[in-house]
């Protein structure tokens, strides 16, 4: 009897979110000469998170452009490029450093199609690494999705899985509307079973997906909080709760249909996100769910969110970020006694 290792016929079928995003950019650059990447350090360095690694070498400095350090200038330049028929993909280095570009985003990117009665669409993708949990010092951990989701004319999407990293980014770049593409930094190095052999775009943008089907209550979440919610759902089994988990993927447009169906099927819902709760995306979701599912609800829709504080220093961030216990505490408050 031999004890030889099993033959390794299959290449490893796991990948990180970062590598899937890189692959999406590479495929987009390869398939469409109109696609141009621009941002700070995206060329030679491959971006501070290495998402554009190797792209300047493969496609040239013009297709993956190291720009001066000026976010409004980057996005404003991208607007002009899009006006001339290019399909710019802009990288903002960090969430809190995208704010200088806010005026271009809100006053021009989001409105140009509308302003010109459809004549001048701006197919721009703005990639923004966002969120905390990476031990970042001040200004490196913001969750800025509510600012963008509040702006008509923008699509706001955020992947939580490796496959969605690829699929949503391809869909974003292919979209004729501007897309704010929020990349959960703390998931950059998370691994999933995913093969780069036959990756597929997620179409259309705007569909949520049920990641876990349960019967007791529904967790509604997105981006960096998805793995936390899935973990909470596992832990909840010990308490006798069987939780559904919905990954929203797209904050704008919002998939009312999938969300309402998932909430009706359990009659209880908790919205989970790490950005501050006040006037956050969770408030909107809770309102929408209440408006659509009131008669199916056994309890008020609750929110588990970051506190209403400036993002804390890294040594305290674990107290700010919604964790499994806080989620289970919220589930426990869903009026089970009735």
């Amino acid at each position: 009897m031999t004890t030889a290792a099993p033959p390794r016929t299959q290449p490893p079928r796991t990948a990180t979110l970062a590598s899937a995003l890189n692959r999406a950019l590479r495929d987009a650059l390869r398939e469409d000469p109109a696609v141009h990447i621009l941002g700070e350090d995206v060329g030679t360095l491959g971006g501070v998170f290495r998402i554009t690694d190797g792209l300047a070498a493969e496609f040239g400095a013009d297709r993956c452009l190291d720009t001066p350090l000026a976010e409004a200038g980057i996005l404003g330049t991208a607007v002009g490029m899009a006006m001339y028929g290019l399909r710019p993909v802009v990288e903002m280095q960090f969430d809190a450093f995208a704010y200088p570009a806010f005026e271009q985003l809100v006053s021009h990117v989001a409105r140009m199609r509308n302003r010109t009665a459809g004549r001048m669409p701006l197919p721009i993708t703005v990639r923004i690494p966002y969120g905390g949990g990476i031990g970042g010092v001040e200004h490196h951990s913001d969750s800025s999705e509510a600012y963008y989701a509040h702006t008509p004319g923008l699509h706001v999407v955020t992947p939580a899985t490796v496959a969605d990293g690829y699929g949503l980014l391809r869909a974003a770049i292919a979209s004729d509307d501007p897309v704010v593409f929020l990349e959960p930094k703390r998931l950059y190095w998370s691994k999933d079973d995913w093969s780069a052999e036959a990756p597929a775009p997620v179409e259309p943008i705007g569909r949520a997906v049920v990641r876990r089907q349960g019967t007791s209550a529904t967790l509604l979440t997105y981006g960096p909080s998805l793995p936390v919610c899935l973990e909470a759902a596992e832990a909840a089994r010990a308490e006798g709760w069987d939780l559904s988990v919905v990954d929203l993927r797209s904050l704008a447009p919002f998939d009312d249909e999938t969300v309402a169906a998932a909430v009706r099927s359990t009659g209880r819902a908790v919205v989970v996100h790490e950005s501050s709760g006040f006037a956050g995306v969770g408030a909107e979701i809770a309102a929408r769910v209440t408006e659509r599912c009131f008669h199916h609800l056994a309890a008020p829709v609750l929110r588990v969110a970051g506190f209403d504080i400036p993002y804390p220093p890294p040594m305290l961030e674990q107290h700010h970020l919604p964790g499994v216990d806080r989620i289970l505490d919220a589930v426990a408050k869903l009026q089970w006694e009735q």
Partner: protein
Amino acid sequence: MTVLDHDLAAAWTPDAHGPRRDPAPLLPDSEPVRILGTPALRRTADSPGGRELLRDLHRRLVVGRRFNQQATTLTKQGRLAVYPASTGQEACQIAVASALRPGDWLFPSYRDTLAVVSRGVDPVQTLTLLRGNAHCGYDPYEHQVAPLSTPLATQAPHAVGLAHAARLRGESTVALALVGDGGTSEGDFHEALNFAGVLNAPVVFLVQNNGYAISVPLAKQSAAPTLAHKAVGYGIQGRLVDGNDAVAVHIVLSEAVEHARTGRGPVLVEAVTYRLEAHTNADDAGRYRSAEEVERWQARDPLTLMERHLREAGVIGDADVAAAAAEAEELADRMRTLFHVKPQLDPMSLFAHVYAEPTPQLREQAAQLAAELAAEAATEERR
């Protein structure tokens, strides 16, 4: 001895620290370029096509002044929601149009409607933003004119991006961005100039320095020697021109456009001019500037200057003046007629073009408005 002279200079690495360029060729002339009333006018008239050019500039000026007058009148009649007049700045406005070729792109701001009209866009379509019936009434691709931009200087980086894209595609398109003197204080102006320099984008920036940003005079806006000097810090060429001299603005802008087109880099042109009217019809200019100051500039009216000098040079005569006036009256007539008709607006168009496809939420909201409108119509009918 400065630090640079000493140890730093020895350690200078061109790859890391960049080239060190002589700023002298980038500096603007010490006095604004002027053609009217100088021997250069004769040379221009005698150059090939010179007389036609001068007559065309004169004609555009006459029509431009009438456009400003008519739009101001329409505001008084309540037919425009607001009108920021370019009265006094017509030389800049029309020279922008005459310096650009078809295919080049213009990036105007709210005060630049005359430049847009002079480029060939229909006056009613140009004024829709200010009339209040749509944000942009014209198709930007028809005449290569971006929508009028209201957030100050935000259109400047667009011009850079478009010019950059054109260069990447190997096309000879030039983009021209218009910014006011106040707008030069905005970050987007700085970022646009910096990007333009670094990308060597074929773009021209024209700053119409009309003295005021609403009420704030230039002295409170900038401590730069001139606004044209701002170019030097970005490694691009600065030019200074008399903004009330249509011939000078045309020539300087044409040179700048060709400079950019031939890959020699972007240019920043400062045209020194004056806003003869208030900021808009809603403004009271008497609160921040004297009547004497306005009178001094009225004496330098770009239209009177042009007419006087071209007549003296024998380039135009009574017939040219009469022909230009007739064309101007025709435009004014047309504006009066067209603006007399109330625009027919479809409330349901509110939901069009927010996205390529309306979102489910917008479909719901559109249905709500449709129901409201139907109910209103039914009530109307019962009356």
